């Protein structure tokens, strides 16, 4: 389909945005009625605040990205809004049970900051192609960000993972930002090297083997992801970065052999790490037998959380207990972060979870649709990277929470509590929307930056 002359759909977006604001407000009212028999006091403020944020974002899109995809902003708003409501609901339960600080207000503040970031990107990122200039700076920045948490001590309640930088009460999870910055590097690097990688190779047993000097960066990234895994106990991130790289490599070179290499290397790495690092083995054991932690003599390092999450999901059944009427707080401290999907599963049931998965699927597919429509290879690669990163993250988190794969401890984009995550994901959406705007904008000249670098335009 030609992007030329695409209708700009801003009114559609506005209508859906109204829905995306109204739904969490009703959910908020529902929680209040279920838990206190009265409408929550902050309901009006919450509704107006969210509405105002969404409206400002929308108006700026009309001005700065008028042709952008109409679905992504409403989906992000809806997920973010529902997440805040669930966190607020778990706060109310936690007040009586744990010493959990009230997280909903923080999450609301971070969401505001996230939207501010979104607006910042909207206004100041005139053209996504300028990011191409920062390919190698991005790589350095990403490496610094990824390595930094290894120098900060892990807390006991972080379940062994060292993925935070803490300064007093303030903490950031650099991995969330590294996700975007690394994608900039991958997209920039691959756009330049794609021909060399795709063509300069020898055929061996039906596969195209790349030359050593082109293979180098891949080996580096592979080792890096293993190092993250070893030093920071962060299974999810290493899976995410490596998966991301393989996907982008495949898209850039259009060669299936890269996927075979990628898989072989990741399997080799996983086996090597799983047989040496004890925490990986612990997680795999917990996945194979989630109820082991409930036995009188639980194995060392075991956690009740997966079992609790499965029992929450099972108790929710098809229709759920209703917002505010479940007992998701049984999942303990991670209920608001890693396991928020378990909370949704219990209170909204299978029905609600399927709807949430549909929202993520739509978000990812709109991102990939943007990649197809994008007119420059950098934009294509960038959009593919960002979208598949989102898909991989959703899969890794939700897979862990539902017991499909071993638990890795990442956050559900937009839903889960966590400032870094919310801000980074809003930035990610903003960039995707920018790419989509330029892709759907009628009659734009081919990007000069691409030609200057001498890369092959597709």
């Amino acid at each position, binding site marked *: 389909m030609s992007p030329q002359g695409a209708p700009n759909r801003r009114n559609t977006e506005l209508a859906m945005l109204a829905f995306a604001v109204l739904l969490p407000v009703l959910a908020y009212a529902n929680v209040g009625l279920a838990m206190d028999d009265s409408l929550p006091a902050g309901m009006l403020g919450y509704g107006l605040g969210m509405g105002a944020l969404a409206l400002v974002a929308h108006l700026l899109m009309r001005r700065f990205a008028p042709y952008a995809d109409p679905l992504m902003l409403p989906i992000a708003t809806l997920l973010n809004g529902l997440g805040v409501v669930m966190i607020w609901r778990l706060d109310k339960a936690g007040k009586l049970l744990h010493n959990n600080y009230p997280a909903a207000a923080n999450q609301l503040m971070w969401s505001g900051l996230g939207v501010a970031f979104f607006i910042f990107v909207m206004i100041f990122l005139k053209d996504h192609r300028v990011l191409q200039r920062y390919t190698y700076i991005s790589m350095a920045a990403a490496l610094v960000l990824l390595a930094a948490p290894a120098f900060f001590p892990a807390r006991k309640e972080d379940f062994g993972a060292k993925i935070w930088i803490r300064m007093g009460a303030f903490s950031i999870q650099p991995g969330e930002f590294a996700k975007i910055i690394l994608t900039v590097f991958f997209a920039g690097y691959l756009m330049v090297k794609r021909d060399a990688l795709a063509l300069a190779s020898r055929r061996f047993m039906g596969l195209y083997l790349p030359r050593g000097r082109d293979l180098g960066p891949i080996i580096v990234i592979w080792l890096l992801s293993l190092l993250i895994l070893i030093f920071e106990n962060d299974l999810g991130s290493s899976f995410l970065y490596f998966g991301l790289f393989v996907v982008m490599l*495949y898209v850039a070179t259009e060669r299936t052999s890269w996927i075979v290499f990628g898989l072989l290397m990741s399997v080799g790495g996983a086996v090597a790490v799983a047989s040496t690092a004890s925490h990986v083995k612990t997680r795999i054991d917990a996945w194979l037998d989630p109820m082991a932690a409930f036995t009188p003599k639980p194995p060392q390092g075991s956690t009740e959380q997966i079992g609790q999450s499965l029992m929450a999901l099972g108790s929710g059944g098809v229709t759920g207990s209703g917002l505010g009427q479940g007992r998701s707080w049984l999942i303990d401290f991670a209920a608001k972060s890693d396991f928020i999907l378990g909370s949704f599963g219990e209170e909204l049931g299978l029905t609600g979870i399927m709807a949430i998965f549909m929202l993520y699927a739509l978000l990812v597919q709109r991102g990939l649709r943007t990649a197809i429509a994008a007119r420059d290879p950098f934009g294509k690669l960038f959009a593919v990277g960002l979208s598949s990163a989102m898909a991989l993250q959703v899969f890794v988190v939700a897979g862990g929470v539902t017991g499909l794969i071993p638990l890795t401890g990442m956050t559900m984009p937009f839903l889960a509590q966590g400032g870094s995550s919310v801000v980074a994901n809003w930035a990610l959406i903003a960039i995707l929307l920018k790419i989509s705007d330029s892709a759907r904008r009628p009659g734009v000249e081919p990007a000069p930056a691409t030609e200057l670098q001498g890369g092959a335009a597709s």
Partner: protein
Amino acid sequence: MNKPIRRVSIFCLVLILALMVRTNWVQGVQAEAWATNKNNKRQVYDRYAHPRGNIIVDGKPVTQSDFVNGLRYKYKRSWVDGAMYAPVTGYSSQSFGASQLEQLEDGILSGSDDRLFFRNTLDMLTGEPKKGGDVVTTINSKAQKAAFDGLGNKKGAVVALDPRTGAILALVSTPSYDPGAFAGSESGDSKAWVDLNADPNKPMLNRALRETYPPGSTFKLVTAAAAFENGVFQSVDDQTQTPKPYILPGTKTELRNESDNEPCENATVKVAMDWSCNTVYGKIGTELGKEKMRAQAEKFGFNSTVDTPVRSEKSVFPTNSTPDGVALDSIGQHDTRATPLQMAMVSAAIANNGSLMQPYLVDQERSASLTTISKHTEKQYSQAMSPETAQKLQDLMVSVVDNGTGKNAKIPGLTVGGKTGTAQHGEDNAGLPFAWFTSYAKTPDGQSVAVAVVVEDGSNNRDGISGGRLAAPIAKAVMQAALGK
């Protein structure tokens, strides 16, 4: 680059699809298993999320559901006269589960029983708050109190039955416990639970249903019934031709009576019952043999559990005793063991002309809106003996109260029959004896009650312990209370 992007797009959809399939599996196919997993605390939270129904005695609840509004538990169980009613109700604790009626009737009490489904759905639609149903017991509060006060700080148990229906009118076990002491989930509850379980007096043991004692001389009623049923004697005044002392068959051991002055030599059946002669009933048992004795005992309910619905321990009449053992079994020593409920059943069958009615504790189950969900229908447990035999045994029991060891149970204006027992136990009978009394009373207009009382270690002085002295006055008080005299 579009072709690989499309493939990546399909790959991403497959990832999400895998999640969807997995969630359907967990929340659809496996949902019930996870929801009812024993580690899923939601079940116990649900039990205390709504007011629990009550256990009713004489139209009044002996339980309460207190609104405590905790996050985990909204309600907490409490009891009226908890210690007195604990052997009836059992406990229902947030932390330690439930027992007896609280456990067996949990479906009704918590409102989760399928028979309440229609009612619950209606309530949900009309916005009525959910509430559990009630369990109406057969307990007579006056009889229960008389039994509880009668036992006082002695260790023992009382069971009172309505012989005509099998309704359990009193069910007391002492020392008892207050189920309210550990109904919650605080540290105090936990301490109370640990202390009660560690108490050497075993206050949480339901002695009325779950403890078996050697029944001692009260078992002679069963032996007498077997003798009449098998035609060994025709009348209560038949001579028994018993030597004194009686040498246990196949041994040189003498079976003795309580005192050598007793007129047991060649006594009639009636005199032997009045004086509780071991020699006479030991000889009868030996002559009948273990098979006939066992058959008679089983008609009274020995060697089976009884579901009231709270299940009683099996009372035992042994099947593999040697002839000298059978003699001792037949006077309620050796390997014979009986629950207080069992001995009340013996009296009840005799008082009800041989027809033993199934004992029951729950008269009705009803919904929170007082609609009856189920009502007990009386059932015969067995025809324990012919009406003629029953009449003879009634004569024997009345004579025991009028002329024999049971004088302490006499009630003016009522026909009272009883049988005492002082059961030895322990290695070489070293323990203090158990004092037994099993009895019945009838009013002229045909109302009746049967009572069994056992008192363990009722006195520090061995000579102070006898069924007639310790247990009969308690039985008397319970019979008076039950019949309103």
